């Protein structure tokens, strides 16, 4: 038998077209036992399509799929499940109306009959304990009540539960996008243990450091093709970025950012978190980019929402002097109007300007959309297409266009780059800096420390309070971690 015998999965010459768009153009891809394969590439490079094929949710137009050395002609989700291949999809695939245990049952046909609830609860609780010690999630919690980070933990843990079917390969598509540094570390450590036990993983992440540190082999995709595949040790950050064909490697934006803004520029926001006991407060002036850092969910989003609310109705402790726009982090639930076109999604924040008499002028709406399509590079043949025709990164761009195209002088960003590819990120960073130079103020909550490099001022949050206030030149990852975990109040 050829070498393929040892592979868990091998795709050869896989092709896929969606209408006129070629998503995959003849890809060869394989995963052997006991390895963690990192898969990187821009949004729209074909990673998700490839993974859908591995998981059996899409069938290739042409090409062959072999699993455990046998050619699979009728490959499907249930077949993949039987053969021990699971996938944690990027968009959460839990049922929000069901409990954690009931969601586990959905993935295990064998969990039935008398006592299935108890079995399901024990199964998922044990796996959560193993991957995320100290997780404080109960199997009887309704998923809809959990934060997005906890949902992701449940989803990941569920993929690793085993009943009657074997488990050889787990695909993790952006598994850490909603996790904070601590839980992300727990997950990646578990992945290493899993791989050390002879099983395999495919790790897709836009956090390149994560891939470099945890993958054994890295596959780089661009425009529906595999461009490089090599041992992880043969890559460094720059080589990866170059291979992805992204914009040139990130230059330290510091110098540019620090182009000292006069302290005298007008005040835009002055806000004190509700839980703040001392005199610390957040101050943002025109033309500043303010970072909100700290572990996920320690009051950053609360403060952004409070500022957003204060813009339309005065509230104690918060002063806002200009119109505000918010770029949501959870774009599926808080950002996008799913039934609407891209142009409509962009125009909604600017309806007053798009009005012609009592009606919205389609022409002005189209102009606005077209302007931002060019400026921010939204990749679509037609801005009148439904917003879901865009890839995730491009959807997020549309949300940026909505905020930046409006009259808002203050833009609140609630970790908007979650799960967005590096190319898009770099483009948006540039745009944010450019807009800041033109006098706009940005309040930017982010869970990725690198993004803070773009900020003039960083406020670190802990338990709903500001615990540190760092200037750009004082910023180091250690300082943030120190303040986030420190006892200081």
């Amino acid at each position: 038998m050829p070498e393929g015998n040892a592979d868990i999965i091998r795709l050869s010459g896989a092709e896929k077209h969606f209408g006129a768009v070629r998503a995959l153009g003849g890809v060869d891809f394989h995963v052997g036992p006991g390895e963690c394969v990192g898969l990187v590439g821009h949004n729209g490079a074909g990673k998700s399509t490839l993974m859908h094929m591995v998981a059996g949710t899409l069938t290739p137009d042409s090409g062959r799929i072999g699993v455990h050395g046998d050619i699979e002609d009728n490959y499907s989700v249930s077949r993949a499940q039987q053969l021990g291949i699971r996938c944690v999809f990027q968009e959460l695939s839990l049922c929000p109306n069901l409990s954690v245990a009931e969601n586990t049952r959905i993935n295990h046909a064998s969990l039935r009959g008398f006592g299935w609830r108890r079995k399901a609860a024990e199964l998922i609780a044990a796996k959560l304990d193993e991957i995320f010690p100290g997780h404080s999630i109960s199997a009887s919690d309704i998923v809809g009540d959990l934060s997005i980070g906890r949902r992701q933990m449940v989803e990941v843990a569920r993929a690793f539960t085993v009943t009657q079917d074997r488990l050889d390969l787990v695909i993790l598509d952006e598994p850490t996008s909603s996790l904070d540094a601590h839980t992300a570390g727990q997950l990646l450590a578990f992945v290493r243990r899993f791989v050390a036990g002879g099983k395999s993983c495919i790790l897709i992440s836009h956090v390149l450091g994560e891939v470099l540190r945890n993958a054994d082999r890295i596959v780089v995709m661009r425009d529906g093709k595999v461009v490089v595949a090599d041992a992880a040790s043969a890559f460094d950050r720059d080589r990866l970025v170059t291979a992805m064909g992204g914009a040139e490697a990130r230059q330290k934006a510091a110098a540019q950012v620090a182009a000292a803004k006069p302290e005298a520029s007008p005040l835009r926001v002055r806000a004190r978190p509700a839980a703040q006991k001392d005199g610390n407060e957040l101050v943002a002036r025109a033309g500043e980019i303010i970072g909100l850092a700290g572990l996920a969910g320690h009051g950053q989003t609360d403060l952004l929402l409070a500022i957003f609310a204060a813009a339309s109705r005065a509230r104690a402790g918060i002063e806002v002097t200009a119109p505000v726009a918010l770029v949501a982090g959870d774009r599926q639930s808080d950002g996008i109007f799913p039934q609407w076109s891209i142009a409509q999604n962009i125009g909604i924040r600017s309806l007053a300007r798009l009005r012609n008499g009592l009606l919205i002028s389609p022409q002005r709406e189209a102009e606005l959309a077209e302007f931002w399509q060019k400026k921010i590079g939204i990749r679509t043949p037609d801005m009148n297409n439904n917003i879901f025709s865009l890839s995730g990164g491009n959807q997020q761009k549309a949300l940026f266009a909505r905020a930046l195209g409006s009259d808002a002088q203050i833009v609140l960003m609630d970790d908007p780059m979650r799960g967005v590819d590096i190319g898009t990120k770099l483009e948006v960073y540039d745009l944010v800096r450019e807009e800041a130079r033109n006098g706009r103020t940005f309040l930017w909550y982010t869970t990725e420390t690198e993004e803070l490099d773009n900020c003039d001022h960083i406020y670190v949050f802990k338990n709903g309070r500001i615990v540190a206030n760092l200037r750009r030149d004082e910023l180091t990852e250690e300082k943030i971690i120190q303040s986030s975990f420190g006892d200081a109040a």
Partner: protein
Amino acid sequence: MRPEMTAASVDTGLKTSSERGALARARLLRGLLPALSLALVLIAIAWLNPRAISYFGFSLMLNLAIPIALATIAQMFVIAGNELDLSIGTFVGFVGCVTATWLKDAPLIGVAILLGSIGVYALLGALIHLRNLPSIVVTLGMSFVWQGLAILVLPKPGGKAPDWLLAIMAFKPPFVPFPIIAALLIGLIVHFGLMRTSYGVILRGSGGNPAALGRAGWSLLKTKIVLFSLAGLFGVLSGMALIGITTSADANIGNGYTLLAIAGVILGGGEFVGGRVSPIGAVLGALTLALAASPLLTFMHIPPDWQVAANGAILIIVLAARVLISRRER
């Protein structure tokens, strides 16, 4: 910062135990709301007319509660799959007409017709799924079909319920009135089937996140067919129970049930989308509506001409209270 702002959950982050406690309390409150509204109506009745709170009083007041509860459960199955059935009322009427005619005169044919009508419901589920049609449109159309068939079967009011059915519905157990026992049984059986069994999870999941269910290898066609068949089954039971009480039929007898059933599901804690339904809540909702519909208003000396409007007002108040409570949950 306003207090509700701090209680509101932040989706992106960890939740403190107190926040989760607040969520659990809000959920409990919503779970109790159907029981609370029922208690409220009962207290009002007891206050207006203490003699109504008796074995005989309940038997009378809850006379029509069983068919309403069954129709509400039928609607609940459809809503659990993110659909809506606008034909359940006329379907109940059609079943009533068949029960009062064929089922009495030629039981075999009657049974075949009723089974066939459940099959039609199953086909509707398949059609809605396969052609991706809006259920509101399909069932609105079907409501006229059932109505027409009912008139064909029974052009003018009449017919007679089969004796065995009359006997069942006239059953008088000791101590507890039959409608209460029947409602309890219906609620518990459906609760077990939908909320506790492993396939019930799949049925509810098909309303919560159909895409996820499909990815896990379940057939959404099958879940939709099962949900619609169950709706058909409970619609048939509702129609038969109704005729068992009224003893004869009329083609328009069930027309009011469509909206009553929808209101009962929502009153009982269900939501139109997202697979969030509660069988016990739905039964309680149906009982509340049955009591509020006429006994309460009669005791309040509201003239019959105004009862329908007053009924609507009660619906608006109770449903608004429900919405307010669910909003706190978010």
